[in-house]
């Protein structure tokens, strides 16, 4: 058992190393694609926490992403805070925002909550577009400075890549810890059987709100990172469609582990860039691809892989026994 764990850590580290070395010799374009994919990964991870762990499906994640982004941009541009503080404040602020809303929304069960989240998403997008004093209206907010800490400014795309990568790795680790913690278990208890969870002392409303708060924190970080990376925010980015993309990503990757979020995000983000040369047919192929993948692999790539592994493993294990 221990051995297995050790080897899987080694493999994970190797994967990380490959990833970390990847940008060498990569152009600005591909780096930006990767950077946005990493930021998207944080949002998809937030869907993992809510949907994968806690069983609650939200379509408001892109809205929370926007809340984080506009919050960070406002703190830096209007209030003059240094980016580091803005990053933390946006994370905490979005988390709090989501947590408080969770208390209202999680009085609703199952898909009623999902419906309310669609409403929240639409309302937030409407605010991003029209609340001029705060979000700059449709024109958006420009000239957000790059992230800087201790006087070091992350000017280049590559520097940003490593910075975002580090944050992604950290959040991944935090999610693993969460997964094995008592909070994580109460999430999963609610997902698998809410009534049984209540009977084992899990407070549904509070626990779901915490899950929503954590997902808000992830979206908040992602939002702040996006604001610093792109330097420009507008309502076009934080849309309901974007939220649906997150769901597509997590479902294609698989909801059973945060690794599914990585797989889903990378596949969808990179698939979009790979089908780029098809120009006019790009979105058609892309949509068809999503549909086919889902039909072929309803449990996501990770779920399908797990099932495949288990059948192979069982065969291997029962084989010699039977003989």
């Amino acid at each position, binding site marked *: 058992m221990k051995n297995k764990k050790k080897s899987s850590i080694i493999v994970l580290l190797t994967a990380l190393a490959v990833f970390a070395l990847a940008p060498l010799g990569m152009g600005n374009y591909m780096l930006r694609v990767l950077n946005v994919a990493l930021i998207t990964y944080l949002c998809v991870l937030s869907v993992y926490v809510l949907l994968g762990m806690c069983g609650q499906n939200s379509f408001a994640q892109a809205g929370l992403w926007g809340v984080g982004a506009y919050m960070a941009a406002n703190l830096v541009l209007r209030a003059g805070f240094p980016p580091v503080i803005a990053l933390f404040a946006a994370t905490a602020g979005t988390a709090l925002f989501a947590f408080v809303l969770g208390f209202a929304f999680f009085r609703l069960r199952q898909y009623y909550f999902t419906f309310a989240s669609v409403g929240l998403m639409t309302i937030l997008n409407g605010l991003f577009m029209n609340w001029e004093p705060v979000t700059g209206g449709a024109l958006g907010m420009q000239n957000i400075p790059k992230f800087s800490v201790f006087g070091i400014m992350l000017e280049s795309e590559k520097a940003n890549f490593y910075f975002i990568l580090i944050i992604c790795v950290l959040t991944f680790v935090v999610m693993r810890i969460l997964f094995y913690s008592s909070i994580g278990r109460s999430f999963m208890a609610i997902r698998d059987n809410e009534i049984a969870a209540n009977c084992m002392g899990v407070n549904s409303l509070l626990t779901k709100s915490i899950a929503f708060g954590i997902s808000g924190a992830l979206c908040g970080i992602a939002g702040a990172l996006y604001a610093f990376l792109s330097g420009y925010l507008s309502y076009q980015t934080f849309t309901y469609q974007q939220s649906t993309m997150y769901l597509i990503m997590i479902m294609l990757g698989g909801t059973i582990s945060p690794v599914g979020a990585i797989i889903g995000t*990378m596949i969808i983000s990179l698939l979009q860039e790979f089908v780029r040369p098809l120009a006019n047919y790009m979105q058609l192929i892309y949509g068809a691809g999503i549909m086919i993948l889902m039909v072929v692999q309803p449990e996501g790539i990770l779920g399908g892989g797990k099932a495949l592994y288990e059948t192979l493993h069982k065969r291997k294990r029962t084989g010699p026994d039977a003989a």
Partner: protein
Amino acid sequence: MKKAFVLFLSSMVSLSLAACGASSSGNAPVMEDTKTTSSAAAADNTGSTTSEEPIRIGLATVLTGERAMEGEYASNAAKIITEEINSSGGILGRPIEIVIEDGLGTDVGAVNAYRKLADDSSIVAIVGSDNSNDNIAIANEAKQAQILSTAQGSSPTLRDICNENPWLFQLRACEETMIDALIGYAVEELGYTKFALIHDTETNSSDQARLFTMALEKRGIKPLATVSFTTGTKDFTSHITKMQQVQPEAIIGACLFNEAAIIAEQIRAFGMTDMPIFGSNAWADPVTIGLGGEALNGVCSAAAWVPNTTNEKGAAFSQKYQELYGHECAKAAAQIYDHVSIICEAITIAGNTDRAAIRDAMNQITDYHGAITIYDCSTNGDCGRGGLVVRIENEVAVVLQEIYSEKDK
């Protein structure tokens, strides 16, 4: 078990990254495909001009998604201009080729498309999309990548951004002069003093609404009512009743094509058949007229372009477009035509395809007669110098006034 996932993951990541690496090096087969889609016309003609490597110009537009219409016009126009230039000998003895990338209609997509073009060292300049948001999103990118880029947006915000950014040119008349001319016509010639303003909150339209208000204020008039709506609104009853309440003499509209047509139809349906309407440039666009039909008759608009333009170059292009594609040529197409021609002009002046040289040459263009208007690029913003005040009669936009102004330097 976890090991399997992780192995799978790592192999996937390395695989995809390998592929990314390949595509980012710039000469991957991926690029070849783009060529075939965007420069079919070029391929036909290269034989007649020269066998030299083509000069490649990027075009970041929107091919798919909600704003795909822009891309349809843009790629059609790109084919015409490529063919035109190549059949007349090309630029610097080399044919041109337009490489199209899809910005998806989102900020992220616009930046990705732009960067993909800018990263390709064989591309000498980039034509930007017809949307101020996209243009603003790429403003800093242009500075970083140091490649001549053009913006099609007409907002004054964009003008200011361009004036600060040596690499970004607003090859379009800033809406300010045009809207001022339209309001001047309405107030001074037609004598209206009571206006109600309806506008979309989307970037261009809200900018236009601001300009309308400013132009009115200049003449000592305040709009009696200002109502706004979001793109995609289909029922304007509440907006129209709000405007009706203040009993305006004329209605000013700043919005996009679909909404312009719907607003016009509903204003007419509610009995205001003779209400004069003054609209932003989208109101006189062939797309809007095609949708709104006779409801648009009598609408005056500050347009950059009408298909039956008096401009010689423009008329020829408009006719060619109509023949080739079977629908009227809209502003979105004419703009691409001008942008590419001006870039080619800059390349000719520069005498080589060095990105910096082309940029410097750009500022030397001070009196270029394009299909839409005359361009003065001595400063980066507000390069288009003219526009039209048009009135729609019998579902055709008729030019009332041609506006032309010198650039203040």
